[in-house]
C-alpha cells in the first residue's frame, strides 16, 4: 500500500535528520489509513533516548509512544508508523531494525550525510517477520 507524505512533512523529516546528524533522529507518522492508501497528515518529532551510540541507534520510550497514540486518537487519526535516519548509511532496514519491528507500521528511513538527505524510503515488516517489503512513497 503506498504511503502518501506531502512535501511539507517530507521537509520536516529531512530537517530533523539534518539537525540530528551525526546522530539518528526518530519520530512518528500520524494520519489516516483509508484502506487503499495511508495518508500522513502530520509528523511528530520524538526524542532519541538511546543511552549511547546514537549515531547508529535510536529509541523512542514506550511512554512517548503511548502519548503519541493518545494524541493521534484525540485528533481522530492513527499512528501509521515511524521515521528514523541512517547517518552515512543507506535508507534500508538493518537486521537490528527487523528484530525491533511490527508488521502494520510503516518504517520510513532517511539516509543522511553531513550535507544532504540522500534518499528516503519506506518499509513494512512481513507478517512472518522474515524481512521487509518496500512501499512506495507518493507526494
Amino acid at each position, binding site marked *: 500500500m503506498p504511503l502518501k507524505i506531502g512535501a511539507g512533512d517530507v521537509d520536516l523529516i529531512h530537517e530533523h535528520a539534518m539537525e540530528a546528524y551525526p546522530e*539518528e533522529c*526518530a519520530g512518528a507518522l500520524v494520519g489516516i489509513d483509508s484502506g487503499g492508501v495511508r495518508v500522513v497528515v502530520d509528523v511528530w518529532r*520524538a526524542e532519541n533516548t*538511546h543511552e549511547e*551510540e546514537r549515531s*547508529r*541507534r*535510536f*529509541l*523512542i*520510550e*514506550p*511512554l512517548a*509512544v*503511548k502519548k503519541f*497514540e493518545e494524541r493521534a486518537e484525540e485528533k481522530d487519526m*492513527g*499512528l501509521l508508523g*515511524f521515521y*528514523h535516519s*541512517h*547517518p552515512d*548509511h543507506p535508507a534500508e*532496514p*538493518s*537486521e*537490528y*531494525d527487523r*528484530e*525491533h*519491528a*511490527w*508488521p*502494520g*507500521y510503516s*518504517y520510513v528511513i532517511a539516509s543522511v550525510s553531513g550535507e544532504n538527505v540522500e534518499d528516503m524510503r519506506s518499509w513494512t515488516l512481513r*507478517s*512472518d*517477520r522474515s524481512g521487509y517489503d518496500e512501499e512506495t512513497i507518493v507526494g
Partner: protein
Amino acid sequence: MPKVKIPTPLRQYTAGSPEVEVGGATAGEALGNLASEHPNLRQHLYTGDGKLRSFVNVYKGDEDIRYLEGPDTEVAEGDELSIIPSIAGGRCR
C-alpha cells in the same frame, strides 16, 4: 476478566478488535491466554524461546509492569493492560 488494549498494527491479528477480554489472574497469564486465543499474535509479542520481546512493554493502567511485579503483577476484573512498543532500531549491529 482483564482487558488488553491492542495497538493498531496488531489489530489485524485480533480480527480488528482494539480491546480483548482474556482470562488470567496475572499479567503474564493474561498475555499468554491472549497469544493462545490469537496465535498469529504470538511471534510479534514473544521470541522463539517464549520471552517477551525486548521492545514490547506491558502497562497496567499507566504503569509499566516491569516496575510492578513483572508477569506476576495481579490483574482483576476491569483492569486494563496495554501493549506498547518502544520503537527502536538503527543502521547496523
